[in-house]
């Protein structure tokens, strides 16, 4: 399948990329890993007049810990780079999600920032970054701005980027206490999108939960934050009881649709199980060790 015709540029600087986006406005699209955009072009669901390939823009491949302890993930950092990273110890929910995105070959090209910009309700990173209170840094005609993940997705496949804006990095704030948690995803086979998924990111001071971020994949048209579940945990001791309460609340927050991957009722059940499982891992982990 051939994509429709388009003009193509691969600028060697961010300034040039921005100039092209400004010139073509709505008619242009950014090409990062291409693992969502190229399939869409081939299916002719997308037909931009201009593709601005950012793969030649220097200094966007990085992921690093900044001086404030936050993790910075550049727009060309591939899923596979994160899967092999040694920097995710402070962000265990990211470490457990990285190997579950797509399949190993797709992970070599696809990017975290691209997947958040794609804003697929089935996308894994959006839920993970939402649970971590991350934000996206974008540059555009009106300068540079930082958009919290909670405001970044306006609807399915609709990021809060303005015409001409390029997302350049994701910023994940540093934990204040012992970070713990994990990402669980039910997939029918390797490389499939989630039937349902749950990102659980907590911070522990001894056995007390000081921060809880819980967000869900594939059970709503927008990224779903399980606020009631977070409230059931924050400021309390982590116990079998609080875990059960949080898991029920998370299942309640889910708004799944029945489809070929499973019934709404089943997906809700999966969410309850995953949130419970992730929190039990934290509870059962030796003190001071992340789970």
């Amino acid at each position: 399948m051939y994509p429709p015709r388009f003009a193509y540029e691969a600028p060697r600087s961010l300034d040039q990329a921005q100039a092209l986006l400004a010139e073509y406005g709505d008619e242009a699209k950014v090409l990062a890993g291409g693992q969502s955009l190229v399939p869409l072009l081939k299916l002719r669901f997308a037909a931009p007049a201009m593709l601005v390939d950012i793969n030649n823009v220097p200094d966007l491949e990085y992921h690093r810990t900044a001086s404030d302890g936050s993790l910075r993930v550049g727009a060309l950092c591939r899923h596979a780079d994160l899967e092999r990273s040694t920097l995710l110890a402070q962000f265990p929910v990211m470490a457990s999600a990285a190997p579950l995105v797509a399949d190993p070959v797709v992970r070599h090209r696809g990017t975290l920032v691209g997947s958040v910009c794609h804003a697929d309700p089935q996308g894994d990173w959006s839920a993970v970054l939402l649970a971590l209170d991350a934000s996206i840094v974008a540059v555009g005609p009106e300068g540079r701005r930082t958009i919290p993940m909670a405001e970044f997705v306006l609807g399915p496949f609709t990021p809060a980027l303005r015409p001409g804006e390029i997302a350049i990095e994701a910023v994940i704030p540093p934990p204040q206490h012992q970070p713990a948690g994990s990402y669980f995803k039910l997939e029918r086979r390797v490389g499939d999108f989630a039937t349902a998924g749950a990102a659980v990111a907590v911070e522990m001071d001894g056995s007390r939960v000081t921060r809880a971020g819980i967000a869900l994949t594939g059970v709503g048209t927008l990224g779903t934050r399980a606020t009631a579940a977070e409230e059931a945990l924050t400021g309390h001791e982590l116990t079998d009881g609080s875990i059960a309460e949080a898991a029920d609340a998370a299942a309640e927050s889910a708004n799944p649709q029945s489809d070929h991957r499973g019934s709404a009722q089943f997906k809700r059940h999966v969410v309850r199980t995953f949130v419970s499982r992730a929190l039990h891992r934290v509870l059962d982990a030796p003190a001071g060790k992340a789970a």
Partner: protein
Amino acid sequence: MTVVHEEPTAGADVPTRRIRVTVNGVTKTVELEPRVLLVHLLRQALGLTGTHMGCDTTNCGACTVLVDGRPTKSCTMLAVQADGHEVRTVEGMSTPSELHPLQEGFKEEHGLQCGFCTPGMLMSAKALLENNPDPTEDEIRWALSGNLCRCTGYQNIVKAVQWAAHKMRGEQA
């Protein structure tokens, strides 16, 4: 060499780009439309039909090649994106007189039946062994999980990669 894909409605002058790409160690200059996919460049312009086009939807991995050493589904990368990069395909694995240990392994352990997925399997396995010369069975299965095989049930593919890993480490297979 020029690659242009005509559509009935296409006007006379289709914009093309000139790229330089190194395929299996040989640098080529090609003029092509930006919408041509890497797999089209390899198969149609360069005649390297060892890279197979399977599902054409980024799922099956039959079209996997190495771009700067990283396994890549060549149906999901524009050929113009290979400008200035190094591509390796299954044709670059063996010499006229000698098979690559992975190819030998697939032969010895019956790692293929119809053979359609094999070029992609070989490229993913090559990338794995370059990074991890002594992988566990789990690591092999994980590394190949973006490549689908509908014949073998994977068992013999795993054995073939283990066979090659032994040989490449200089151990008795």
